[in-house]
């Protein structure tokens, strides 16, 4: 039997900023239903790589596929990128994203933050979306905050709203860009708990994080990056028990 199509497939991805190479020749397959943690020292290109997956950063060359369909546009040999904006937007709607600094829309209430994209982008009926949004907020323990504005929430609450906002789109994948790095230590747990239950529920998650214990216990696969390249891809248990590369060993010690 042939392997099923990976949720995300990355082929020879490169990214340069002003002639400075940030990502080099990245190849990676992320199977559907798995949780992948991307680890690595600061400046290793983890966040840039994650942002290339939904083309928030436009790759200099290479390609990203979501369920076998190419994300974004074509990059020709000269590195010139042509973007089909409509297609890109349609693809992005299938990829949820959670940002380090929450990025909640500050002019909207919690409930409106969660319902905005499904109503505006997916054109789903408001009534349905609101019912579903309330159920999601219930699930992350924030139903009582539905009608307050983001500024009135703690960091942990904001990030749970941000995850709810991603979930409401019924995405195929959710990308997390250091979701707990901006949180007070005592709020990290409540956010990780939500991500843990998503992992159990079979959501495909790609997570850039510095939470080693979380990566070890919850993720299926660890991707270790350094210097703009992937140095190691391994099942989480294996990676933490016996990293294959010297660089990873130093990183973990």
């Amino acid at each position, binding site marked *: 039997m042939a392997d099923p199509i990976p949720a995300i497939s990355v082929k020879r991805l490169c990214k340069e900023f002003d002639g400075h190479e940030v990502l080099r020749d990245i190849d990676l397959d992320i199977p559907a239903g798995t949780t992948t943690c991307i680890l690595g020292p600061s400046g290793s290109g983890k966040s840039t790589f994650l942002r290339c997956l*939904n083309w928030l950063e436009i790759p200099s060359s290479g390609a990203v596929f979501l369920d076998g369909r190419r994300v974004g546009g074509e990059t020709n040999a000269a590195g010139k990128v042509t973007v089909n904006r409509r297609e890109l937007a349609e693809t992005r709607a299938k990829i949820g994203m959670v940002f380090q600094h929450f990025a909640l829309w500050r*002019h909207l209430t919690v409930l409106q933050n969660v319902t905005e994209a499904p109503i505006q982008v997916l054109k789903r009926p408001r009534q349905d979306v609101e019912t579903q949004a309330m159920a999601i907020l219930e699930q992350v323990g924030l139903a009582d905050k539905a009608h307050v504005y983001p500024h009135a929430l703690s960091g942990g609450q904001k990030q749970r709203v941000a995850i709810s906002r991603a979930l409401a789109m019924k995405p195929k994948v959710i990308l997390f860009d250091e979701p707990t790095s901006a949180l007070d230590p005592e709020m990290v747990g409540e956010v990780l708990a939500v991500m843990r239950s998503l992992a159990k529920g079979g959501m495909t998650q790609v997570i850039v994080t510095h939470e080693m214990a979380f990566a070890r216990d919850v993720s299926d696969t660890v991707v270790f990056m350094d210097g703009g390249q992937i140095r190691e891809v391994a099942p989480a248990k294996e990676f933490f028990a016996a990293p294959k590369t010297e660089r990873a060993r130093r990183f973990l010690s």
Partner: protein
Amino acid sequence: MNGVSILWESRELFLQGALDTLTLVLGCLVLSLPLSILGAVLMNESGPSLKRALRELFDFLRCVPFLLLAYVIYYGLPELGVRLPPWWAGLVSLTLYNAAYLVEIFRAAFNGIDRDNIEAAQAFGFSRLQTYRRVILPQAVITAAPLIGNQTITAMRDSAFLMIITVQELTFTANFVSANHFSPFAPFAMAVGLYWLMSVSIEWVVGRMGIIRRSRYG
């Protein structure tokens, strides 16, 4: 005849004058808000040459004394075959002048919006138009409200110049009443009082918006 009885006798004229001024200012707002939003969006989104042309145009408009702009539009345009009645010439000048300032206000407000709020919209599949309509504009209008309010008060003060091109607004009325009764003090003081009252009302509306903003944004 003393001042008070002059004013009492002319009360309907003053009321009408104040209403005409308000209509001018409201008309100017209704036209210049969308115009300046369009201008600000174009300046953000267009290529370098169009952006440059727009910048020159708005800078130029802001450099012209308002009275001269009104002269050019009312007395000058007929030479080019465009003849506007005084009221419309006044409204057009007021709108253009006001819009040139509002463009700058909106541009500053657009630039002040958190980058990540826009990025989140992109990441969730919003089109450029949806991003403006649903995220950038609502936030920009709320943050720019105090400046828009100030600009509206400035437009109202500028509208007094329009009596020179015979627009029948509040200053025109005061002038008319004072000439008819050979008594300048009371009619002009009345006009000043009415301008002040209208300014305070605009300030009040802006203040209300400020309260809404603080309750939401903290």
